[in-house]
C-alpha cells in the first residue's frame, strides 16, 4: 500500500511547485507539450497555474435554497460568525464553517462550493447555531437545505 501511495505522490500534478498545498488540483494544468513563441517549454517548467480570481457573482443558488425546507431565511445572514463560534463540529474540523457555507452560496462562488462540498455532511443538527443567531437565520435548517443543494451540484 505504501508503494502505491509513493507512486501516487510522484504522479501528483505540479509536484515541483513550492507551497503546493495552497493550490487546488483543478487549477494546475500540465500540458504534454508547451510551445511559447517558438521556445519549447514542455516538461518541468511548463506548468500553468490558473488564477483564482472571482470574476462574477451568481445569485441563482440563493433562490434555490430559499425554496428548500427551512432554508428561507438564508438571506438575513450578515456574516457575524456566531454560528461557527458555537458549532462543535467546526471546532474539530475547521473546514466545516456554517458562516462560510452561507456566504459562498449567497455570492455563488461555485469553485469554493466544489472544494468544500464533502464537509457539509458533518452537520449534526444539534441546533446550537440556531439558538445564538442574532438575525434568526436558522443556520441549522440552512445546513439541511445546503446538504440537499450541494448534492445536486
Amino acid at each position: 500500500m505504501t508503494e502505491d501511495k509513493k507512486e501516487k505522490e510522484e504522479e501528483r500534478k505540479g509536484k515541483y511547485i513550492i507551497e503546493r498545498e495552497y493550490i487546488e488540483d483543478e487549477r494546475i494544468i500540465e500540458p504534454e507539450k508547451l510551445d511559447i513563441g517558438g521556445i519549447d517549454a514542455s516538461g518541468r517548467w511548463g506548468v500553468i497555474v490558473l488564477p483564482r480570481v472571482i470574476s462574477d457573482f451568481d445569485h441563482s443558488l440563493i433562490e434555490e435554497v430559499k425554496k428548500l425546507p427551512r432554508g428561507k431565511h438564508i438571506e438575513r445572514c450578515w456574516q457575524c460568525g456566531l454560528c461557527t463560534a458555537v458549532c462543535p463540529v467546526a471546532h474539530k474540523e475547521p473546514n466545516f464553517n456554517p458562516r462560510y457555507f452561507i456566504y459562498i452560496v449567497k455570492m455563488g462562488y461555485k469553485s469554493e462550493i466544489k472544494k468544500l462540498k464533502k464537509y457539509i455532511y458533518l452537520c449534526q443538527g444539534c441546533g446550537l447555531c440556531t439558538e445564538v443567531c442574532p438575525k434568526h437565520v436558522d443556520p441549522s435548517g440552512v445546513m439541511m437545505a445546503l446538504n440537499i443543494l450541494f448534492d445536486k451540484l
Partner: protein
Amino acid sequence: MEGNKSILVIGAGPAGLQASKDIAEFGFRVVLVEKNSELGGAPIRWRYHTLAPDFVPTEKVLGPLIDFVKNNSLITVYTNSIVEGYERKDDFFKIRILNLRNKSISYENVSSVIVATGFEHYNASVDPRYGYGINPNVIGINELEIMISNGKVVRHDGKIPKRIGFILCVGSRDKATNPWCCTVCCGVSIKQAIEIKKIIPDSQIYIIYMDIRTIGLWEKLYWQSMENYHINYIRGRVGEIYWTGEKLLVKGEDTLVRGPFEALFDMIVLAVGMEPGEGTKQVAKVFGLRVNEYGFLSPRIPNIHYDSGKDGIFLAGACVAPMSVEEAIGEGSAAALQAIKYSMKRDRKVP
C-alpha cells in the same frame, strides 16, 4: 447700545437655521450670514431627497425652518456673504460683513456669536484609485442624491445601470487623507441603495465595506436592506477601477473568501465623507478659534460642543464633528440657548 439684543449666526445649515428660529422666537434679533445664495446648507445644496432612517422628505424637516427664517422680521439674512472681521467693543462684537457678489461691506453690532459653518464633501479626485473625475460612471453619494431627487438614475450614456456598487469609507479612516469616520456615510449609502432599488427594481446592488456603522436607530436600515431589498454585501476593499470602454472593472479583495475579485460593474458610487470646509477654516481664522488636528473646530472640552473656549462665541453642527441632520438641529438649539443666556447676562448691570 442696542447691540446687546442681537446674536450673529454664521451659516444657514440645519444647525444655524434652528438656532435662528429659537433666538427669534425668544424675542432677540438674529443676524444670519450665509456664504451661498440658498439657505439650508448641505441638504439643500446637494438636494438631499430623503433623510435616514425613516425616509422623511427633506422639505418636511428643513422647509418649515427656511420659511420661518425668511419670513420673520427679527431675522436679518445676508446671503452670498461672509464675516470678514470683527472688533470687540465693551460688551459687544462689531461684525464686518462682506458681500461676495457686489463687494459691499455692512456692519452689525451683536452681543454673541454662533458658528455653524458646516462641512464639505471630500473630493475623491485626490485619490487616484477610483478614477473619480476620469472614469465615467464613478460618482459620489452627493451626486447620486441629486439623481435620486430627479427620480432617474442613469449612466453617462443615458442607459439604466444594472449592476451598481457602493464603496464605503472613501477618503475616510485613512492616514493618507482623512483619518476620521464620517458617522453617517454608512447609513446614507444604505438609504440610497434602497432608494435605487425602488427606482430600478431589477438592479443588483453591492455594498463593498470595511465596517457597517449604522448608528443608533439607523440599524434598521441595514436589516431592511438585506431582508427586504436583497442588497448584497461584500466585506473587502477595492484597489483599482478600470474603465473598459463599456463597463467598470473593479479589482478588490473579498476578505471572507480571502481572495481577489475582479468584477464588471455598470456604476460605482463612492461614499465620500465629510471634511471641514473653506467656510469653517475662514471663520476659525477670523475669530482665532482653536482647530483640532483634523481641521474641525475644537471646543474647550471635547464632549461639550457649544463651548468654544472664547468668551461669547458658541459652536454648533458639523463644523465641530461629523454628524447627522438630527444631531445638528439639536446642537443649533443648544447653542442658541447658550448665546441667549450669555447675552442676557451681559445686559444686566453686574455689581
